[in-house]
């Protein structure tokens, strides 16, 4: 499980960084999305990987060791929402830049 998750984060962030460095705005936005997925998975893994464990305590005599850490899950939720909103905003700016410069190059220059 650790290996699977580590490979997934690694592949996502490597492809994301590669796309971020490309000259087309569409590649950049896909790269940003991939990096944000990698970061979200990474935050989740920081609460330690647990199988079949609920994050919410039930009952007064529950043993905390049987439960998953709820904080990273809350953090990921916030990070997903913020990342989604920012990506949507960037999409609008991308279209505006495309319309104003007539090119989808990040510097607005055709080639």
């Amino acid at each position, binding site marked *: 499980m650790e290996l699977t998750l580590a490979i997934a984060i690694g592949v996502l962030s490597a492809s994301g960084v590669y796309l971020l460095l490309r000259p087309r705005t569409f590649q950049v936005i896909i790269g940003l999305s991939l990096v944000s997925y990698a970061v979200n998975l990474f935050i989740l893994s920081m609460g330690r990987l647990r199988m079949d464990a609920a994050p919410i305590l039930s009952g007064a005599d529950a043993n905390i060791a049987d439960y998953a850490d709820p904080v990273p899950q809350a*953090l990921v939720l916030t990070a997903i929402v913020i990342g989604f909103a920012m990506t949507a*905003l960037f999409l609008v700016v991308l279209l505006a830049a495309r319309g104003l410069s007539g090119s989808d190059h*990040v510097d607005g220059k055709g080639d």
Partner: protein
Amino acid sequence: MTGMNHIAILPILIPMAAMVFNLLVGDGRSNRRIIGINIGFSVLLLLVSILLLTVLAQSSTAAAAVYPLGNWPVPFGIVLVADRLAAVMVLTTSILSLAALIFASARWHSRGTNFFPLFHALVMGLNGAFLTGDLFNLFVFFELLLAASYGLALHGGGRNRVRAAMHYIVINLVASFLFLIGVALIYGTTGTLNMADIARAVPHIAADDLGLFEAGVAVLGIAFLIKAGSWPLHFWLPNTYSSAAPPVAALFAVMTKVGFYAILRLWTLVFANQTGPELAFGQNVLFVLGIATVAYGSVGALSSKALDRLASYLILVSAGTLLLAVAYNVPGVTTGALYYVVVATLAAGALFLLKDVIDQVLPAEAQILAVSLEFYGDEEEVLDEDQEVSRSFPAAATLLSWCFAIAALVMAGLPPLSGFLSKFAMLSAAFGADNAPTAATWWITGALIVSGLFVLIAMVRNGINIFWTSLPDDGGLALRPLEIGPIMVLLALCVLMAVFAGPALSYFADTAAFIHAPQNYIDLVLPQEDTP
């Protein structure tokens, strides 16, 4: 202080109320009453900030307003901490935002949609970032201020602005992801997000986790350095700042200071002052980056011919100076740096606003001259009388050149104004810190003095171009009172900071003593019985 603790949340609530009000009444950019109410909200924020500062200044040195949101017990819930450092930053933000808002209400607010809600959202994010005592909450407020700043950077539209804003958005999104990685690593190793709790947990980190923790701190530091505009992560800054609308750029002058604030807060609290293996983590790297930023900003200032680019490079110079002061990690140097951050922010904001006023009064060909000096000397000084938009001031050119001269003196750090006093305070503390001056002392001395010289040369050259060769004869200049007024107030505050340097410096000395003794902060925020 019990009843006064509620004051800690007001600097966030007031801009939020202003934002909600603007969204409810709609885009009333031509309605004078709505503009008046917006300015009223900013004035209210300024009054609250002044109240917060005076309350803290009158109580004991180790006092701070601690506000647990929703009254959750502190390490579990989010807490707002308004200590002296936060109060200074909030007050600076309030002053600059009021000046920029009044300036914008003359003309710039109607250049695009939703100026006022975005403006208040940016102020709310800034105040929240200064006040929060929780690392993840800091991220949320960062995102809030960045989201508003994306909209404001685009305010006014146009090809250059959209292109600069696009670069700005991508770079800051990447910085936000780095921020998240850093926060996650710190949470993974310390098990908490409360800054005071992290500071308490750092000495108890298992030896196996220490590498992971330091990696998290380093990644977090990179995120802050991108926001602070440190070399080599500064490349987005000059383009974004010089192409943003002037009142927006003036408010952006505070935004780089958020990065400085975050570094100062976290490094003094968590990473630098611990005994043991975490002693002064990354201090040398910060110092080298500070020197490089000052050098780059000074050379950039010399190379820039347009005033807005020059102001952007001055922001870099001040960012580098502040990084140097943080890296020096001595209370006396921090005292000078806090004094410097206030005057440098106000002066840089005034300079961005002044640039817009000068642009309006300069003849069109002089503006081309400012960009390309090929036409030097053969321009004809013609003022188009049709462009006169408001009543002309007597001696308007004199007024403008005085404003410019004060801004130049403050930015370059020449006596008798506050820029000199702040640099002097930093340097004398650096020399007095150890028995004998170290290599770092000479580096910081050289950086401050040489950068001051470079900035002076750049400002003088720019001033000669504008006031001696390009400006039309006196009497024909049209200035809007709403635009020149805020600039004069900002610069007058810089002068007043020099007149009342004694009380100001003693307040900053108390602040520096407080933040360099992290146990005070930990005791304030955390319940006593939890402290081992």
